[in-house]
């Protein structure tokens, strides 16, 4: 059972309503400061090997 709880290495993704995402927190905050993308960014932790585009789209569609 313990093997099921093994933590995968993750990465932090900053994404917006329009589906665009970046990995850099400073860039995300900078873009928010000028309302570059029409909304404030959201944050998600994804596995390192995740298909980010697909995951973001999935998050936005759900």
């Amino acid at each position, binding site marked *: 059972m313990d093997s099921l709880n093994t933590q995968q290495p993750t990465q932090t993704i*900053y994404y917006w*309503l329009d589906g665009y995402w970046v990995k850099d927190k400073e860039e995300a905050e900078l873009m928010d400061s000028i309302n*570059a993308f*029409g*909304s*404030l960014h959201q944050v*998600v932790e994804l596995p390192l090997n995740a298909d980010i585009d697909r995951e973001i789209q999935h998050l*936005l569609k759900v």
Partner: protein
Amino acid sequence: MNTNAYRLGQLIVLEQNKIADAKAGIAYVKLALSFAFITTWILYFIFAFSFYVADLWGISTWLTENTSELVAFALFLTMALLMAQTLSMIKHAFYHHKAAFKYGLFAVLLICSLGVFMELFNSSSQQQTIAHQSAEKSKTFDSVANTQISIDRGANSSNRIAYLSGELAKAREYLNGCKKTCKTYQVKVADLTAQIEALQAGQAQANEIASLASTNAIKAKTEAMSALKEDAHKPIFKFIRDALGVGISTAVVIIACLVSIGFEYSHALLSRMLGEKLSYLESLQNGLVKLKTDYLQAAGTEYGSSELIDAPELPVSSFKYQQAAPFVSGFVSFKNAPKSRAQGSAKSSDPLPTPKEQQLPFPDFGGFKARRDTWATPELETEATTSNHQLGVHEEKPQQPPARGSMGLYDDWVQAVKIGECKPSVDPTWSWIQKRISNKETGERTPDRTRISAMQKAFFSRAMKEGLMIENPNYRNGGKKYLWTA
């Protein structure tokens, strides 16, 4: 339903962008038509003035010499002005009319022919004037023009003839009174008569030769001057003359005709372009109306964006989705998210918005913050803004389907590049961003060049990710580092 409304909302935004582009294109064509109108006016005025009053070259001299003819001058000048104004207005109005209401080829040809003829009249005359002035200023021409033609009339025999006539008279007198020497005087008279006749014949022939020589000399001088004038014409005219075996005047007219036709065709083309752009705009506006109607049916509320058909561009400082309340209301469950989270009620699953719901001020976008505060800064955001919404993949997801909130500064920049307002290069984009945030940011941030550069890089990064621009593979110093591909 919501997905459909979202799709329609996006299509409406795209349609509005296309309309803005089309309007910019129409404005540009109209500007070109205005310049064409001014050119036409000047062209017609020169024609009318040259035709009815005097050649514009040397007009000051002409005026000095004709100051007493003020009435005639004033009348002809007025007519030239009115003719230029009327004809150019007719032409301008016709091309605008043709853009909206298609016209037959004959009417277009008629208008174009009038322009071609007047241009031909002006340009060919002007070329002749230029060539003659150029020739007359040359030293060669001056030398030829000042050459004196002297005719050598040969030996003058009139004195000799007079002398021989006197001798002949004497000999005849002696012959009349002779008794023994008659034979001698008869011979002398005959001899003198023959000499006089020979001299007179020789003199006549010499005069004829001298006259011919004089004529030839004058002709040669004239031809030399004409040749110099012809040689002063532009090489293109001489090329046409030699290639087609025509005179220089014909060559000038041929070239002037080609240039005139080119101008008139371009002018007429503007009209066609305007017509096509107007039709395109009309189709876009009809499409926009249809999309908004579909949106109304799908979302149950009007797409109330401030981006109206006649005012597709919003002020840069405006956050469009904030003004587009009905657009937000299209995501019903989105709006109800806070309530559903707080109460866990089933109301959050209500599929359709109600008019009452539309009046809710600003919904929680399922975690996304609406930019209701102008220029909120990251520092003002609490950590909860991000950390509270951190999600594990497929563990905690946004409870509502988020929608594209609005077009932000990045989309404005993309539009600015598309309509040519901003170049997709580092410095123009930097300046573009700086202008748009300078009145929003105060204090220490305003002069922060590094920060604006970071914004510019982020914009470029996204544009390249979206395939709007690429790094120039053939970039060299001084060239374009980025290429806009959209």
